[in-house]
């Protein structure tokens, strides 16, 4: 027993501190995973693209990398299969959230590429997403010009305007901000005005579930006071 603990204490304490590190990482990860899940849910439910969570995505990727390295070590050291599959499950779920989050955003960019490029929604994109959006718009413009617009008479060849006599860009598809969304308040908001005329006022209590038009609660979502489900 004495010799066992003696020879074991050196490598044992190393493993113990490594274990602590991973545990600390996993504890941090739980909060980060919650944040990622929230960002993912909001993005999924909102009709327009939301602010890119750069810091969160960076941290999530670091956690993923740490998990992958830990798993490699486990398989090298022949750790119990059950533990390995638990860590693997965790890794898979985090990876899915991250991939799905990025994918939903990309698909929103595909759908509203021209609208995003022309409004301040552009600032909600990450650098790489902006490059992607620019490429997408160029490709789409080229395609539409080639197949339709160049064959139409002069004065009707614009992609943004119906004809040169249009006063503003009337041919750009926009997201429907009027859609109803399910949302849950995080803390009490109090009396909240739903529209411009002040006809509809709703009392938003903490932790309650509501179905409202996205347009009315846009500001609250951006401020993080309400979550979409």
């Amino acid at each position, binding site marked *: 027993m004495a010799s066992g603990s003696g020879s074991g204490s050196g490598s044992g304490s190393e493993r113990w501190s490594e274990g602590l590190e991973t545990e600390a990482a996993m504890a941090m990860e739980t909060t980060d995973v919650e944040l990622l899940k929230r960002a993912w849910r909001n993005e999924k439910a909102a009709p327009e693209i939301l602010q890119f969570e750069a810091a969160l995505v960076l941290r999530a990727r670091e956690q993923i990398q740490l998990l992958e390295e830990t798993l490699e070590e486990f398989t090298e050291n022949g750790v119990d299969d059950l533990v390995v*599959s638990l860590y*693997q*499950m965790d890794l*898979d*779920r985090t*990876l*899915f959230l*991250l*991939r*799905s989050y*990025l*994918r939903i955003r*990309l*698909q929103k960019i*595909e*759908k509203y590429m021209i609208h995003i490029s022309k409004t301040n929604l552009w600032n909600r994109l990450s650098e*790489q*997403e902006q*490059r*992607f959006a620019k*490429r*997408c718009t160029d*490709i*789409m413009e*080229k*395609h*539409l010009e*080639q*197949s*339709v617009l160049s*064959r*139409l*008479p002069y004065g*009707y060849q614009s992609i943004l305007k*119906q*004809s040169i006599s249009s006063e503003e860009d009337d*041919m750009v*598809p926009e997201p429907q901000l009027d859609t109803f969304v399910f949302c849950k308040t995080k803390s009490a908001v109090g009396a909240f005005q739903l529209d411009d005329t002040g006809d509809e006022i709703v009392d938003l209590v903490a932790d309650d579930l509501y179905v409202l038009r996205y347009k009315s609660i846009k500001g609250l979502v951006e401020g993080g006071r309400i979550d979409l489900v």
Partner: protein
Amino acid sequence: MYGRRASQLLRELACSETGQLTTFNSDAFDQVIKECNEHNLQLQSLIRKIEDENLDIQTTRNEDHFGAVIHHLSLIRNKHCLMAYMYNRAETIQSLRWKVGPVLPQEIQEKLNYSEEEYFKNHSAAIESYMSELDLDLTVDMVPPKDPYIRVRVLDDIGEVCLGDHSISLTKHSLHFLRRTDAEPFISQGIMEEFLE
């Protein structure tokens, strides 16, 4: 009746199932373009007639003016329909990259016109460029994971495939126990299926 050919294109769009493409209707398409150019000629000649009669273009409201307005509005209607046709097909083509992958099977390729084929390739490249910038494959993991590993049955002879750090021989009818993310691209191409007991 102005605009009838154009509404035929739209009806084609409405009748097809979401996510499915019909063969590009170049006959109807070319006809609508021809109509647009005819409308334009009529429109221009009516405007010239007003100018020849020394009337003010901006304020005159005679039958020539209203004739010109009708041609202008019909042209715009046709333009809307053509743009809607192309744009909606382009959206379906975008979704194909996510659902099917970077290479389209022959039956779908046949339905695209030349510009659409190019559009698919360029759009695919844009998505791939973004993914490689992030070093993350976004076309796998399309459904929330239940098990990290799944049983699969190979449907077509695929041969030797390198997965991670070892290679596997994927012969027809063989059963394997693979990582879900490794198997997904094969499953979406239809050459492998999940083996559920």
